[in-house]
């Protein structure tokens, strides 16, 4: 297995254009958030590290036509890890002032509508695993880039109602729990389906083109297409759900710490109650 960690092997793709994005984002981050706390800086580094690894490490190389499971790991990084840590890296005060402008405020509230975030977060997962789309985006380079961009954006939209740096966009806790739990249910369904189905979800991975001559290595490790897909399904199911459960714990922690000094203030700035007000 040493070859996975052998940084000079063809399993690492050091000349990936992802560096451009990483550098741009880092530049922007330091421009916008001059006085950043250590925690936020760390969150940002995690996001950038995950972004880099998603493309240059074996995850990126193998997800390019070799292993369905690696491809799922890449999705998870793009959809769940990177957006989550990006949101955590933004400072509350800077974002507060940014989102106090009318247009941005509208945008922020629209993104806080739970239905939209849920649908984009889960929607991309389901959409890009319809066999023909999955295949096309694996085979076609620019479609692949487009797909990855949708994953990042959908991830931001998904986490926004729970972890937005601006507190007023947070869902009310019971809605947030339902939001995350149903998300877990939805990815469980997709994961189970991919794990147990006998259909090849992404035919491109069923007969890989051996670009860099590692196919035998993979097969020797037992990662034949059927096992690989099963592993991919499990990865699509268990890690996201664990993350959602962790997020639920964070929400509950907030909820239990929700001690207001003014007892009867009916906080209307709460997007959860905003939704109720609509009904």
């Amino acid at each position, binding site marked *: 297995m040493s070859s996975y960690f052998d940084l000079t092997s063809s399993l690492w793709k050091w000349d990936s254009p992802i560096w451009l994005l990483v550098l741009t984002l880092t530049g922007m981050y330091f421009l916008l958030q001059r006085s950043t706390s250590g925690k936020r800086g760390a969150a940002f580094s995690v996001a950038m590290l995950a972004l880099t690894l998603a493309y240059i490490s074996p995850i990126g190389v193998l997800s390019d036509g070799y292993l369905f499971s690696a491809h799922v790991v890449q999705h998870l990084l793009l959809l769940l890890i990177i957006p989550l840590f990006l949101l955590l890296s933004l400072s509350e005060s800077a974002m507060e002032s940014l989102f106090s402008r009318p247009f941005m405020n509208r945008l922020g509230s629209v993104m806080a509508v739970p239905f939209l975030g849920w649908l984009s977060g889960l929607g991309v997962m389901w959409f890009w695993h319809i066999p023909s789309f999955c295949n096309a985006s694996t085979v076609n380079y620019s479609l692949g880039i487009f797909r990855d961009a949708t994953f990042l954006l959908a991830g931001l939209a998904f986490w926004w109602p729970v972890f937005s740096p601006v507190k007023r966009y947070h869902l009310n806790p019971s809605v947030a729990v339902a939001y995350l739990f149903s998300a877990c249910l939805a990815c469980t369904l997709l994961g189970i389906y991919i*794990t147990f*189905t*006998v259909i090849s979800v992404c035919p491109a991975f069923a007969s890989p083109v051996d670009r860099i001559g590692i196919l035998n290595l993979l097969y020797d490790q037992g990662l034949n297409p059927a096992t690989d897909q*099963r592993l991919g399904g499990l990865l699509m199911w*268990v890690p996201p*759900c664990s993350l959602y459960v962790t997020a639920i714990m964070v929400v*509950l*922690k907030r909820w239990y710490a*929700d*001690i207001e000094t003014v007892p009867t203030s009916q906080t209307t700035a709460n997007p959860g109650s905003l939704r109720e007000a609509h009904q």
Partner: protein
Amino acid sequence: MTTGSVEESQLTMLEPQPTSTRMLDWVSTLDHKRIGIMYILTAVFYLAVGGFEALLMRIQLAFPNNTFLSPEMFNQLFTMHGTTMVFLVGMPVLTGFANYFVPLMIGARDVAFPRLNSFGFWMFFFGAALLHFSFLTGSAPNAGWFSYVPLSSKAYSSLQGVDYWIIGLLIMGIGSVSGAINIFATIINLRAPGMSLQRVPLFVWMMLMQAILIILALPALNSALAMLLIDRWLGSAFFDPTRGGSAVLWQHYFWIFGHPEVYILILPGFGMISEVIPVFSRKPIYGYTFIAASSVAIVLLGYGVWAHHMFAVGLGMYADIFFAVGSLLIAIPTGIKVFNWTATLWGGEIKFNTSLHFAIAFLLQFVIGGLTGIMFAAVPIDWQLTDTYFVVAHFHYVLIGGLVFALFSAAYYWFPKMTGRMLNERIGILQFWLWVLGFNMTFMVQHFLGMMGMPRRVYTYADNPGWALLNGIATLGAVFMAVGTLVFLWNIFKSLHSGKIAGDNPWDAFTLEWATTSPPPPENFPVIPEVKSRRPVWDINHPEYADWKKEKTPEDKGRRGNLAKIAAWSFIASEAVFFLLLLVAYVVFNTKLMAPVGEASSPETLSDVTSSVLDVKRTGIFSLFLITSSLTFWVAERFLKAGKKSAFVFSLGLTILLGIIFLGGQVWEYTGLLSNGISINSDLFSATFFTVTGFHGIHVTAGVIALFVMLLMGLKGNLSSEKTHVFGAVGVYWHFVDVVWIAVFGIIYLGLLQ
């Protein structure tokens, strides 16, 4: 199911009813406390029945090569014992305690839905009776409490035992879900002012978690039972591998229910312990938030680990690894709670009475059961020990050592509140030692027997070295437990007669049930006490040390939600799981025909077969009728709110008409299929097709009836604008039925996911 029923039930309680007998009083009661007691008494009765069955088995196993019981009898006994203890003792006794204490502990005068509650009890009562009727047929169920197929299929269990098992469980399942919806709505909606959800006693919180588990897990069992029944009665082959079905699917469905079920049984036990330990340590619970939040984690993770019961099936290495890791994860929130309870005891002013004796034994024994559980989570260990007495030891340590001890602890703690008299402490301690000794004798040795390879569920064993001795000890222990139970009953009878008078709050306890008389009056509280912290009664009795002066807890924001909507949503959540699993079965059975991974798909794909028998266009048109009916319903709701009666009646009538047209389309389709010789037992496609659409049709019919009732109410002018939420609740259901149909149409008719 109206909110008005709260007052009504009080009236029925308060009015003297000169003609009715005491018996009739109880049978017709809507008082949650009486229903609670009836649950508990029925459960105690079945505890005796199940315990007697266990004793018979232990006598048979006391000696090697014993012939006291026939193998056939032994099979029936372990099946009925397991089924009885889980469904007829564990669940109802907990529902009983919840019924009695949840309203009291949250400062409510009644439960949310007294009639639904009583319905739930009687479903349980008759379901349980029906199950036991099977003895009269001479063949009680004998396929184990999880009735694995193919053993439980017609081919191998041709007598009616399994049928009784299925029907009994279905009926009780409906009862449990009704009861859980009631408890859920009660906790969400009827809390006293000041009692924010972050302040409820932990027992109440655990019952809330349990209600969620029941609402979302029982439908999994129900769907599996429905399919098994269709297999047995109508000759389909869901679970028959020889005809393309899947025996493993039963195991999946059973354990998707079964693992949450073990938490349904133990979470309330956690709740009881979390009430008892603080009171007898004279301290608030240590880490309230952790205990509460970690039970949420347990509920969520509990749905994701079912396959650890199936490691021996051969699910594949990766699946095994993931489920093993999941099981280890769920052990964390379970395990850390033990530290919370210990920390609560630590440095406390311990009142070491019977109740606390049982609570501490719970801690020690539950730890042992938890550790063996963690052992089982390691796949190779499971392969070695599965289906041996080690498994029996594991789950009895958590279920008896855990749950039953928690129940005894709670019984000693709450008996004074329920009866006004204290249980006798000396007899209590005697019972405690009989149980601790008996329990550990019986089940500790089974760890060793399991490791030596003694298989569970086999009626006898050879005289292997040591086995006779260990089994003898186990049987002796069972006798101790039986005697202990008799001592407990004796204690109850004696104390009911001549126990010390308890007074309102004999333990100087903390939570609201102690703020009223013992036993409480029908309306529970003369005045609802003020709630400003998690220990309101402590605050009232010790104002100088009141909790709210020291530690702030989240205030009650006064949100309660609407009862009818809560009931409707929790009901459809349950239904959604049911349909989801039926649809999953459809997908499982109807993608099988495709080419395996890696090979080019053959031209004879399933969708051809489907489209050859289904008229997709025609059904599509009928589907439009159903979907339009959602729209007209929405319009009707608007009109009702606006008070325009005739427009309301018209659009509601139209909704009903559209629903009926849709049903007509279904009848047309069915007759077409049947006359072409395609019926439910033709093949797996037809079986899944008829099951899914049939259940959906039943739901549409029920919806049409409900709409019709609404229409009548509207015509009579009974549907005032403040009853719009009842109408809204029916609407939630009606829209749900439509949404389900859209999924059904997409998956079955359009062949998505294939």
